[in-house]
């Protein structure tokens, strides 16, 4: 980098309105991290290099100009929209970075109900888009827990997945086209077509790039008809996860597409379902949706399949429906959780992986047992599978620990990273993927070469080609 901190700010102020270059110390400190260091954030302890500025992007042209400026001077750039990242993807790894905030680019550009697609700028909160299309009887089909706060740009950049993925797919199945800006200022638009066989699908260079290749300014996603009145919920209790995975597999391989298909282990079930399950019970649950005939047939099919597992005991569907209606986390729940952590120093973390049907239970059992054995002060070690496919499923490890004898800054090194390490090791050993949907960020970048194996060549070459000067979100995906 050939500019001083002041030089960076000065340069940005020549590109955008001076008011759009934020240099308030508190905001810069807040912008140096994401939820990967949530304990530090809660206690106001800051250890990451402070960015030089947060710059509010208000147009694709401004984004291009900022990126050209950063590239010319070798300044690290961190793209950001809703800021709900959990894996360190928004952390500033090096001093004097520029955080490009796309949250002000929040226009819903077009809702095309005839062609069933909606185009919006990167800073549109998913909740806003969803509410808008619901008025037309439509849905995006995308509903991650972060829906109330996450924005479209960030969701696409991190290969987000939502609660109804088993029917609608992840965001990669929803994006039909997009606009992205590369470090050299190249503005690229991928057109919105149903499908094409005109070479590799270049959408996937952008989707999931985590700000390490380009800045996403606009996305177009599919729309689906919305029939909430047809939703059918099914819930069961059972004694072990192995049976749960088997039941999920049976539903998937028999060709059914419930929108939700989940199995919770006893620890995780205790957090959500203690009002109707015993201490050591697992919970298996489904939601079928869509046109009446399909929803009904799906539910009946799932019911028939699960009936073949005598270990599964049916529970009143109203439990599942009521739980489901309160699943998203808005600012209220997040702040309440922060206060709980501040008082109790009991921290909740999650790590999600995926694997084929043959391996998933082994990974779950092995990682869980090792974490309980090797990591101190664990108060809950559990998880659930929430996204299933024809060939396998995911495991969402959900765990809590008390932070004892160390300050907030040491929480990641004493507890969180060692746990991530165990989960990654046990997953890689059995051929699974170490990241199902939160993104690699910086937290899991050390394992990226093991994750990719020989195919790392392709990933690495993308970085070299599109970001030859290495200014895009240093340390994310590609370890420093």
């Amino acid at each position, binding site marked *: 980098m050939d500019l001083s901190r002041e030089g960076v700010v000065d340069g940005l102020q020549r590109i955008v309105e001076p008011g759009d270059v934020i240099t*308030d110390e*508190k*905001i810069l400190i807040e912008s140096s991290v994401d939820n990967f260091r949530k304990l530090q954030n809660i206690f106001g302890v800051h250890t990451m290099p402070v960015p030089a500025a947060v710059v509010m992007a208000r147009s694709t042209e401004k984004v291009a100009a900022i990126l050209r400026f950063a590239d010319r001077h070798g300044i690290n750039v961190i793209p950001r929209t809703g800021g709900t990242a959990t894996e360190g993807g928004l952390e500033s790894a090096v001093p004097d970075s520029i955080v490009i905030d796309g949250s002000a680019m929040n226009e819903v550009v077009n809702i095309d109900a005839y062609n069933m697609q909606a185009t919006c700028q990167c800073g549109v909160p998913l909740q*806003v888009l969803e*509410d808008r299309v619901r008025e037309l009887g439509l849905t995006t089909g995308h509903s991650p827990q972060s829906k109330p706060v996450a924005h479209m740009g960030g969701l696409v950049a991190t290969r987000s997945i939502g609660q109804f993925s088993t029917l609608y797919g992840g965001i990669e199945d929803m994006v039909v086209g997009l606009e992205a800006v590369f470090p050299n200022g190249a503005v690229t638009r991928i057109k919105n077509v149903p499908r094409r066989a005109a070479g590799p699908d270049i959408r996937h260079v952008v989707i999931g790039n985590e700000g390490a290749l380009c800045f996403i300014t606009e996305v177009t996603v599919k729309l689906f008809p919305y029939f909430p009145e047809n939703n059918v919920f099914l819930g069961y209790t059972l004694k072990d996860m192995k049976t749960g995975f088997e039941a999920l597999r049976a539903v998937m391989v028999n060709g059914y597409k419930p929108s939700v298909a989940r199995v919770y282990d006893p620890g995780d079930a205790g957090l959500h379902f203690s009002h109707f399950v015993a201490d050591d019970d697992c919970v298996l649950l489904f939601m079928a949706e869509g046109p009446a005939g399909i929803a009904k047939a799906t539910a009946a099919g799932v019911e028939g399949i699960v009936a073949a597992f005598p270990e599964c005991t049916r529970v009143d569907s109203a439990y599942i429906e009521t739980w489901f209606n309160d699943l998203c986390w*808005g*600012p*209220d729940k997040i*702040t*309440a959780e*922060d*206060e709980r952590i501040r008082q109790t120093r009991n921290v909740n973390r999650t790590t999600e992986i995926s694997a084929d049907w043959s391996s998933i239970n082994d990974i779950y059992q092995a990682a869980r047992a090792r974490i309980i054995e090797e990591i101190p002060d664990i108060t809950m070690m559990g998880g659930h599978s929430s996204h299933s496919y024809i060939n396998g499923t995911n495991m969402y490890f959900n765990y809590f620990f008390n932070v004892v004898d160390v300050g907030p800054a040491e929480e990641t090194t004493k507890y969180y990273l060692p746990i991530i390490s165990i989960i990654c090791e046990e997953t890689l050993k059995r051929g699974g993927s170490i990241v199902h949907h939160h993104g690699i960020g910086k937290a899991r970048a050390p394992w990226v070469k093991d994750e990719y194996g020989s195919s790392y060549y392709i990933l690495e070459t993308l970085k070299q080609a599109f970001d030859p000067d290495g200014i895009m979100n240093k340390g994310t995906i590609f370890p420093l």
Partner: protein
Amino acid sequence: MRFVVVLDGTVTTVARQARALAAFLRDGLGDASVELAGVTEGGRGELGGVTERGELAGETLVFYADDGDKRRLVDLAPTRDVRLVKTTARRPDLMVDDLLALGAGAHSTGPGTLGGEIALILTAGGATGAELATRLACRTGGAVLTDALSIEVGPRELRGRRTVYSSHLRGRFALTTRPWCVSIDASWNDGPRSPSLKPALEHYVLSDTDETGGAQATPFEDIELVAAPSTDDLAESRFLVVAGYGAGSREATKRIAQAARRMGAGFGASRPVVMNAWAPLDRLIGVSGTRTAPVLCIVVGASGAPALSWGIERAGFIVAINPDDHAPIVRDSDALLLDDGVAVIEELAEIVAAQREQGGAAPTA
């Protein structure tokens, strides 16, 4: 049937208690009780409603600790007839003994006692009022309704309302045995919806007894009043600006607070705001914070979660400034500005300040 209003004159809040009880007697008795009272002998006047002259009939029992307070306390009574009882401060359990000694629990005819059957005992909102009402009901076999929003007096039972389900609903209750011991909801102050009542023009002190004798070991010692941390009282504020999480930052919250100050408004914040330390905790409005009743409330950037709605729902006029026309606050507001909250509130502060310089409306919170 007679009724007694109880004031705790051992603490400084007694004037507020008196105002609240007077407002309750005027506005808190449902229409049905007027009709019912109308068919009973003496009508509502005897039961303690408003007489034609606007004075309140009935009896007020005032606890006091210091002889020097007596004259002032008598003047606060919402009824003409007053009894004074000297007692130990902060001991509702002993005050109940005093009430029983005066015959509150039974037909009493002796000199210096309340006389006749007491049907209804009304206490102020807050912890002491609730404790007095509850303990009295326990000892007399009567029934208790705490935090009453309103009551309707019938010949055999008393019906009343208070909030239940953590403020999500109002419950209707029937009190089946007498005396009906009712503590009123703390919201009954002389706020905008209940303009202050004048106390009775003249008072008659029927009795004055000292119940502080028979000194027993006190369980409470070294009582030390801690200065309240807040300088302006949100609960009393008549003009309030409330910042929500949609303010988006500490900086923006500060600007909203500054705009509030410019307009002479009190400043409060929703839970997410104080939990993010964008505003101090004593600014919290809503569940677990202050419940307010301003004449005018401007809510900036709050979505309107139930916890906050509860804190502002008694406001006379609510303005919501929020870019999102789908937020719940939209249904909770009288006027809605779909815009960036900070920009609008600063413009408004400008307008109000200019108006004030011209000698126009000059609000003081």
